[in-house]
């Protein structure tokens, strides 16, 4: 054989490195025994690879010691805990606000009933006004009867005044038990003076309405603040989590 093909060279090169399978190795060894060109080429390659392996190694000119600045770790060392802390704080704040909101809605039974309780005197006031206009029309006719009733009421204890308040006029018929005693006491006190004053004094009723409006307004504004806080804190938490995920990448 005088000419080596690419395949011959590949086989010879792999044989030199011990990278041939048993059958291929046996084949090339058989050819080597019979082919002087193949033998010489193997000798050349063998000498060359040995020479390349003995080339002097190059020592690293310095120690490649990485610092946090090189890998951008310093920024992370404070940024990651700061982000985690902020996320935790926002999550806790959100939980607290949700808790407050929940408590508000759970206590909303009493809170919600409060406006109704406050509205009751208002309703009572409306019916008392209607009753007042009726009593004014028949003031002279009914005066003795009312006076007698008032006189009877004047002598009764507080429970009796309650019964008196359940008079046909219906002025205080819808008053709940929570109605402030002041509102209840007013007719009883006025009843001792004169018949026209038997009707509930307008002073306590407007006070109750104002209180109802104020309390209702406070509740709705408080609920609004809570809702906005929940939205803002939720958005903040979402952003912080997104930043953390981005940071990890």
């Amino acid at each position, binding site marked *: 054989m005088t000419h080596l093909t*690419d395949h011959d*060279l*590949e086989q*010879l*090169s*792999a044989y030199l*490195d011990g*990278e041939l399978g048993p059958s291929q190795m046996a084949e090339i060894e058989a050819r080597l025994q019979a082919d002087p060109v193949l033998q*010489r080429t193997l*000798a*050349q*390659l063998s*000498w*060359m*690879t040995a*020479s*390349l*392996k*003995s*080339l*002097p*190694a*190059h*020592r*690293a*000119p*310095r*120690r*490649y*010691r*990485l*610092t*946090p600045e*090189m*890998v951008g*770790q310093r920024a992370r060392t404070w940024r990651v805990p700061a982000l985690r802390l902020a996320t935790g704080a926002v999550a806790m704040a959100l939980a607290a606000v949700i808790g407050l909101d929940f408590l508000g809605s759970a206590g909303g039974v009493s809170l919600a009933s409060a406006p109704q309780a406050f509205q009751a005197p208002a309703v009572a006031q409306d019916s008392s006004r209607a009753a007042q206009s009726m009593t004014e029309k028949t003031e002279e006719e009914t005066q003795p009867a009312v006076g007698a009733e008032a006189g009877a009421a004047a002598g009764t204890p507080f429970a009796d005044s309650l019964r008196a308040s359940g008079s046909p006029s219906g002025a205080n018929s819808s008053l709940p038990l929570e109605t402030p005693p002041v509102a209840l006491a007013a007719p009883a006190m006025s009843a001792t003076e004169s018949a026209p004053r038997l009707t509930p004094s307008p002073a306590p009723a407007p006070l109750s309405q104002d209180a109802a409006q104020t309390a209702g307004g406070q509740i709705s504004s408080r609920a609004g603040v809570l809702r906005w806080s929940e939205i803002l804190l939720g958005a903040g938490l979402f952003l912080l989590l997104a930043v953390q995920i981005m940071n990890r990448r």
Partner: protein
Amino acid sequence: MDEPGLIEDAQRGDLEAFNSLILTYQDQVYNLAYRILGDPLAADDAAQEAFISAYKGLRRYRGGSFRSWLLRIVTNACYDELRRRKRRPEIGMEDLNPLDDPEEADASGVLMTDVGDPESEAQQAELARALEDCLSGLPDEFRLVAVLVDVQGHDYQEASQVLGKPLGTIKSRLARARLRMRDCLQAHWELLPAAFRLEDEAM
């Protein structure tokens, strides 16, 4: 050295653990970069860049030979440098070989293996220069395989992992690289042993 433990620590962000790994492999990494690029400064930059890339990409390491993984990163860094050079060919590979200048060679951190008599030492240095010249004249894809297998002594499997090429490609590129090296060395016939000269005489 508990290499798997150090790798795990480094993956958790322990820079000191990674620095211990660097200490183990820095000569191999630098040497490979130097052999591919033929320039000590470029090799230094490539090694540094490779270690930084390796640390930042440590999460992508999924076991196997850490050395192969690291050498693959430095090989890629060298490829990038070679591509940059091709875009801006300012300095030829042959101009960068510090072994051309004995003083520069001494300063480049060459680990001379054995010290014999001055004549033999000079001959060895000449041969080393000839080999390095021929090696640097090889096309990039052939040089990389020759450096990994013939200079650094990796087997085909590891060369395949480092270069991300199939075993068959490694085998054929290496054979071609060796053939070219052999032909190149004919220009330095005075340094060659009898086997080479015999061929000259035969031809």
